[in-house]
Every structure is written in C-alpha cells, then in structure tokens.
C-alpha cells in the first residue's frame, strides 16, 4: 500500500503511528513519553553500559523495532538501498548534538509533539526553538550547504546496523548481560513483545510515509509543501484525543511527573539545536533510524553519534532533570538544566553554525 500518494493516506500513517504510541503508553511506557527516540536511545545506551545513570537503562525494543521495521519493509518493497560516503564524522557529531539538545529539553521532536498533545506548555515553548532551528538550517541550505553525495556500496553494508539491532534484541531476550533499571523511567515499559511489535509497525509506517519532524517544517518553509506535516498533525490529533479521553491532558507549566522542566530559554535553545542539526543531517532522530534501516550507512553513523551523545549527556551531567514532587514533603521540586548542560548546548549550537556555513557544495556555479 502506498501511504504517501495522497494527504488522506499520509494522515492515516500519522493516525496509525499515534495509535501505536497510545498502546505503548497504556501498556506501561512512562507517562507522556509513549515514544521518544532520544530517551529510548539514551535508555538503550544505558543498557549497553555506555553510561551509568541507573534510572535510565533499558534496551528499548521500540528502537530495535523501528530499525528492523524499516529494514524489512524496504527489502520487501525493493526500496532497500545500501549507501554511504557523505561526511560520516560530521554526521556522527550531528547525531551527538541531536541527543544532547534533546536531553536538555527532555525529549526528541516526537516526544515534543506528544508532550504538546498532553497540554505541556513547555513543549509548545520548545516548538518555537525547533522551528527557528529548522529555519536556520534552511538558510544554510539556501547558502549552498552540503555534506556531499552518498554512493551506492555493497548491499551487505546497509544490513550491518539492522543486524546490530537484532543482536541487542537477542541479548535482551536470551541473556542477562544488559543493564535494566529497577526504578525511574527506565523501569517503566510496555511488555517487550508489544514494544517490539509497536516499533516494527511504527518503523514500517514511518518508512512508507517518510515521516520526519524536521523535514515537515523544512518542506513548509522551503516549498510550502504540507505533505509531511499532515503525518505529524494527525499523530498529534490522535494523541490529543487519547490524552483528553483518558484524563491525561493537563494544561500548564511545571507539571510534576511528566519528565519536563520549565526553563524556557533552555527549552527553546535545546530544540533549536535539534532542529538545526536535523536539517543539516537530513532528518530528525526518528528519520535517522529509518534511513539507517533502509540501508544508509551515513544515517547509521548518525545514530551511533546519537548513542555517543546519550552517553556523554549522562556521564558528564548534561541532561536536565524533570519537575517532580518531593515524596516526603509533597512540595514541588522544579526541574532544571545543569550548568554543564548549558555550556555544552552553546558549544553544540556553535558547532552547528560552523558545520552549516563551512560545508558548501563543491564547484558551485550559478
């Protein structure tokens, strides 16, 4: 089925993805974090021992499912294409920035939309930053930004990343080698098989619809094309209906228990970095996983950068804390961005500017 030849089908793709997120939230994923690429990459990095934050360690089957879902559907529909060769180390750094920025805000663009649908005004504030970040990336594109072309390589290469994901799944299923949180967000999850199926469906739908949070805004700014935005909007509507119907919609800032903070400037700058880096890398964190699944080694390197970014964020104390209630006194403890996080984010944004305005199309003529 072609999920992208009309806006109605694109909307259906968003609805399907939204329903997957709803199911995962109902069956145990953290409240308001039904499906978050940055958080789940961070949890998986923790499970592999890349960081030691004990409350966020769990090999999320959703991440594995996304990659394998995209891989399987692309092979079946003959869209699998093994490519590589477009500035891999710059992409690695952009992957790090995608996750460092996300963990300052506390969520990737997908979770930003999910948080928006639950009434979290912090996410609406962050949306401003995300749009500005994508807009800055678009300016760079107009100035001739390019990381160079990718080349078709031996088909085995594109299958390596999906195979690694399969390896993590086998470790999770048949060994006790992976770390798993006993408390905190990492301990909250839907049953493994359900998460895996959810990831597979989401991955296949995202591959067919080309779902991309940064790409949707890029296309609106650059070409006034609303196709990709239709997918995101319909996912938002499904989550909004679910949150309203289940009483999970709480409009406000400083809402405890949803893993968010209300430092507006840093929410804006966090998602600014993510939007900017996503345009430069050619896709948001979700899209990078999907492209890696359908054979792009360049995107696989970006995802490896995302794992490194997650490890750095928790090993060096860059990740923000969420607003919570003190269990003893019942008082509200405001979430906060760390000093190291602020410094790292400023460096990330500066690096984005350097990458954006020093990598130009070679031999540009007009």
């Amino acid at each position, binding site marked *: 089925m*072609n999920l992208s*030849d009309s806006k109605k089908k694109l909307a259906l793709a968003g609805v399907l993805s939204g329903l997957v997120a709803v199911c995962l939230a109902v069956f145990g994923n953290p409240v308001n974090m039904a499906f978050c690429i940055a958080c789940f990459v961070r949890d998986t990095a923790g499970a592999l021992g890349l960081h030691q934050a004990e409350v966020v360690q769990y090999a999320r089957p959703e991440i594995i499912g996304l990659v394998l879902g995209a891989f399987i559907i692309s092979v079946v529909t003959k869209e699998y294409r093994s490519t590589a060769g477009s500035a891999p180390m710059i992409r690695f750094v952009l992957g790090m920035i995608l996750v460092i920025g996300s963990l300052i805000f506390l969520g990737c663009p997908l979770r930003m939309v999910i948080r928006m649908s639950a009434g979290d005004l912090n996410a609406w504030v962050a949306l401003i930053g995300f749009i500005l970040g994508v807009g800055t990336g678009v300016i760079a594109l107009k100035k001739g930004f390019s990381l160079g072309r990718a080349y078709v390589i031996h088909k085995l290469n594109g299958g390596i990343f999906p195979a690694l994901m399969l390896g993590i799944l086998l470790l999770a299923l048949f060994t006790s080698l992976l770390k798993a949180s006993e408390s905190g967000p990492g301990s909250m999850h839907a049953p493994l098989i359900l998460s895996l199926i959810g990831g597979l469906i989401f991955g296949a739908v995202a591959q067919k619809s080309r779902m991309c949070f940064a790409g949707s805004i890029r296309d609106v700014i650059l070409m006034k094309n609303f196709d990709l935005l239709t997918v995101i909007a319909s996912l938002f509507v499904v989550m909004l209906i679910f949150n309203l119907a289940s009483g999970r919609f709480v409009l406000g800032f400083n809402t405890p228990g949803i893993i968010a903070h209300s430092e507006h400037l840093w929410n804006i700058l966090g998602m600014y970095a993510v939007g900017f880096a996503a345009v430069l890398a050619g896709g948001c964190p979700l899209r990078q996983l999907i492209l890696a699944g359908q054979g792009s080694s360049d995107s696989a390197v970006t995802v490896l950068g995302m794992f490194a970014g997650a490890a750095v964020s928790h090993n060096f104390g860059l990740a923000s804390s969420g607003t919570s209630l003190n269990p003893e006194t019942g008082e509200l403890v405001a979430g906060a961005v760390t000093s190291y996080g602020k410094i790292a984010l400023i460096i990330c944004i500066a690096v984005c500017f350097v990458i954006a305005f020093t990598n130009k199309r070679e031999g540009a*003529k007009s």
Partner: protein
Amino acid sequence: MRKKELKLVVTFHTTADAMAMEKACKVRQVPGRLIPVPRAISAGCGLSWCSDIEEQEKLLGIMQEIEIEREAIHECMV
C-alpha cells in the same frame, strides 16, 4: 485541490544541487519549482526540480552549464 499533471521531475544527489538548480532556472527564467522528491520515485526525502515536459532540453543545458550531476530524470504525475 490542484489537479495532478504529467511533469518532468529531475532528482539530484544532494539537496544543494537541487537548490542550485532552482537558482539557475530562476536566473534564466525557466519555469518550474522545487518539490519534495515524489514518493513514487524514491524512499528518500530530498528535493527535486519539477518542470513542464517540454523544458527538458533547456534543463539539460543548464545542468551542463552549471555542472550539476543529476541523479535521474522522470516523467510522473505531480
């Protein structure tokens, strides 16, 4: 809703090449527009140049002149 028509769609290896094509066509007043690569053509999410079918020769000339390597040229409903 706009009715779909048979158009010429040129795809490129990089987004920057598509943007350069847009700039060059504007300068030379060759009609057309940037569009997302149609899903029927590719699973990628890059940009492509869309023109009327009869502009093919002009487009080929421009690409040669400004040294853009195209990925492919398609005729498809856009």
